[in-house]
């Protein structure tokens, strides 16, 4: 199935990608557009200022000592020979200890928040595959871009069917590996509508650095509109492609597309070919015949098969049946 999806949604080199995040942000960080970003950035800047303080202290002392106590003549002896000072040693062990425990705690809290999505989060499945992303939305729609509503928790369940990839959205401050053979989860809640960049951050081969896509955070109400539109398969695909998807979803329990018979005859190569029915008559499997087989399967029964097929009347729309016919047409072209 994954293979099929992949063949339908061929990866293209993207030239239309947004920057990591819209304008703004601080010197060190791009604007944070998720609820997690607030905490992460606060911890970042806490550690940053502690580091700046200690770094300046170390360098200032070093430069000052190097200048103040420089040797003026070769062979000059040091002016003091203190070799140790236990209280001092313990002090400068204890102060960093307190600080790093604080850093640990703050970092840990933010991490735990990222682990546990609130109830009712929108569930999106993510398939990472060399070198593209496939997002499956709750209604079954599969897309190469991640679209989410603003201010709603979204849970991503990641999987990979080749090597390890990693989903990274800098503006949301989240990242999670997509590991073959296991499901990894992460969640976020976007705070700002807009376009953001999503990148693969675990090396995965030749086009690792092209494995980028867009995250679109929709303003209230827009996400549903987008999903309905995007889910309309005819918008982005050819008839035959839609037909292939429909057959995969509705027909492959009984039919095959590789020439082997199953519960029903193979659908490969039947289009505009002769078929023998149970009563011995022969018909050509043209458009009307296929349409009839789908809507009124009992009308004509193929020799050697049973009556298992039930009608798709009311299930498949006219346009969808046309798409299936197109696909079957392609299948017989292939076999010629």
């Amino acid at each position, binding site marked *: 199935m994954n293979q099929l999806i992949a063949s339908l949604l061929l990866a293209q080199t993207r030239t239309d*990608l947004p*920057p*990591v995040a819209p304008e703004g942000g601080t010197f*060190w*960080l*791009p604007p944070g557009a998720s609820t997690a970003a607030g905490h*992460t950035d606060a*911890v*970042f800047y806490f*550690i*940053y200022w502690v580091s700046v303080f*200690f*770094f300046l202290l*170390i*360098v200032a002392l*070093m430069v000052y*000592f*190097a200048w103040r*106590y*420089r040797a003026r003549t*070769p*062979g000059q*002896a*040091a*002016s*003091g020979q*203190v070799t140790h000072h236990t209280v001092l*040693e313990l002090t*400068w*062990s204890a102060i*960093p200890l307190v600080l*790093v*425990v604080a*850093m*640990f705690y*703050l*970092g*840990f809290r*933010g*991490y735990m928040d990222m*682990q546990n999505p609130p109830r009712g989060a929108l569930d999106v499945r993510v398939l990472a595959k060399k070198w593209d992303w496939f997002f499956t939305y709750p209604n079954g729609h599969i897309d190469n871009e991640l679209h989410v509503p603003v201010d709603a928790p979204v849970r991503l369940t990641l999987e990979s069917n080749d090597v*390890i990839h*990693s989903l*990274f959205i*800098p503006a949301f*401050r989240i*990242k*999670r*590996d997509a*590991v*073959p053979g296991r499901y990894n989860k992460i969640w976020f809640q976007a705070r700002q509508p807009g376009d953001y*960049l999503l*990148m693969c*951050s*675990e*090396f*995965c*081969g*030749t086009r690792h*650095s092209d494995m980028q896509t867009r995250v679109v955070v929709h303003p209230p109400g827009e996400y549903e509109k987008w999903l309905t539109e995007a889910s309309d398969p005819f918008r982005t695909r050819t008839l035959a492609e839609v037909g292939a998807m429909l057959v995969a979803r509705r027909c492959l329990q009984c039919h095959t597309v590789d020439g082997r018979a199953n519960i029903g005859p193979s659908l490969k190569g039947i289009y505009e070919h002769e078929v023998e029915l149970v009563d011995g008559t022969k018909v050509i499997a043209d458009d009307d015949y296929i349409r009839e087989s789908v809507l009124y399967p009992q009308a004509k029964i193929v020799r050697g098969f049973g009556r298992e097929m039930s009608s798709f009347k009311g299930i498949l729309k006219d346009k969808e049946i046309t798409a299936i016919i197109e696909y079957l047409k392609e299948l017989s072209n292939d076999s010629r």
Partner: protein
Amino acid sequence: MSAMNPANPTSDVPPATGGNYLTQTRGILSWVFTRDHKRIAVMYLVSILAAFLLGGIFAILVRTELLTPNKTIVEPDRYNQFFTLHGAIMIFLVIIPGIPAALGNFVLPIMLGAKDLAFPRINLFSYYLWLLGALLAVLAIVLGSVDTGWTFYVPYATDVSAGGTLMGGVIPVLLGVFLLGFSSIFTGLNFIVTIHKLRPPSMGWFQLPLFLWALYATAIIQILATPVLGITVLLLIVERAANFGIFHPSLGGDPVLYQHFFWFYSHPAVYIMILPAMGVISEVISVFSRKHIFGYHFIAFSSVAIAVFGFFVWGHHMFVSGQSALLAMIFSLFTYAVAIPSAVKVFNWLATMYRGAIVLKAPMLYALSFLFIFGIGGLTGLFLGALAVDVHLHGTYFIVAHFHYVMMGSTLFAMIAGIHYWWPKMTGRLYSELWGRVAWVLAFVGMNLTFFPQFLLGTHGMPRRYYNYPPQFQFLNVLSSIGSYLMAAGFVITAIYLLHSLFAGRRAPSNPWGGATLEWQCSSPPPTHNFDQPPVVGDPYDFGALKYDAAIEGYVSKT
């Protein structure tokens, strides 16, 4: 304290009778089959520097490709091989063995007043193992077109570069790395036994120079961690040969398990890289401040503490790979624990400088820049230890910058400090101090210009190992590449004046810097058996017994 040469108290140690270790025997075979730790050290040094040149060329190629957001000089696959070669060569061939195998090998026995290491033959054997491993690893990467990065993560490493054969792709590379590991185990073992057994009776554990404490702590890590690398290779082979699922998901294995194995070795390996560097810095700062090292015991124990804690932090490489939150918490905590002994060392070095008589010669310049660079490298580690922040920074250029500050900036600068510091002892010549400064400025400025912008690239979201990158990152990438060219210029100049000094350098006195450790009591270069007269063991950081002799531009014993 008794004099080394009572008859003529102001003169230098006389040159070794019967020639020094370089001249005593001649011919290529006298090197190939030597058991002299000094010659083996020189062979290591030459090989390691050759590897450094090779790794450096790939670094420059990588930086050149990154000058533009799209293709600059090569196609993506070639680029991926470049950074794989750069990483693998620099880590396994240069930084891990650099200080212990080259400098440590040379000075460790002399610092103990011994003739040689405990097992001279094993020492030679481990050099050849290193050579073999190095050739195997590099050839396997080149011939197998391995483009996995130096971490060789499965299933990418086993699928993509494997070519489907049992020994294809990444396995021979790892075998090479394992040979290198074995070489490292032997060296470690040799060091431990030597320090235990060949110490003069009058030298207690707390009279060991701190460089030896550092090498000792390193040796323990080498012995304990490296076998895991061997086990990993073995498991990979078993998996491939018997289709027995261990790491590969298609066989029911778990790729994250591979990461655990890999980092169980490779994280401690980070301390194999940094601890000896810290040892060098302790020596240099004390000697060039003319002052007793401050807090000897704290520095010594902090090496051991780092070695021990270093074993319990490997999981910090997997905070986003799906390991359990509980494990992540434990690893984060231990990671922070390592920060304390590191900080203690830095403060002690600063306190050593306080009220010293500081001499800013090349070794000291590199040592002080070590404090600067390690300051940045260490402090940026604090960001990565914090779980929430690591989630953002993991796998980005922030990591690249951080570990280059620690491994390239700190370890390599310490190694260069050490090379300059022991150069007169090893070669009997003095290098040009002027050119030393010029090169240092280039290397120091270049190093910071190369890697500081990468912190910003990382925090703004540029992932590592990117061939194409969003155009918004170009400016910082160009800065970084320019920095790398400056740094390369600095290293080239260093190579030139060091080589030049071999032929034209002034003859070095036996103790040009006024060091109180025992290697300064033998002639420069030392005789094959190291000491013509047994050295006088004392406090390795007590400079009171030395005085400067302007006639020889070096230090001699006062009495």
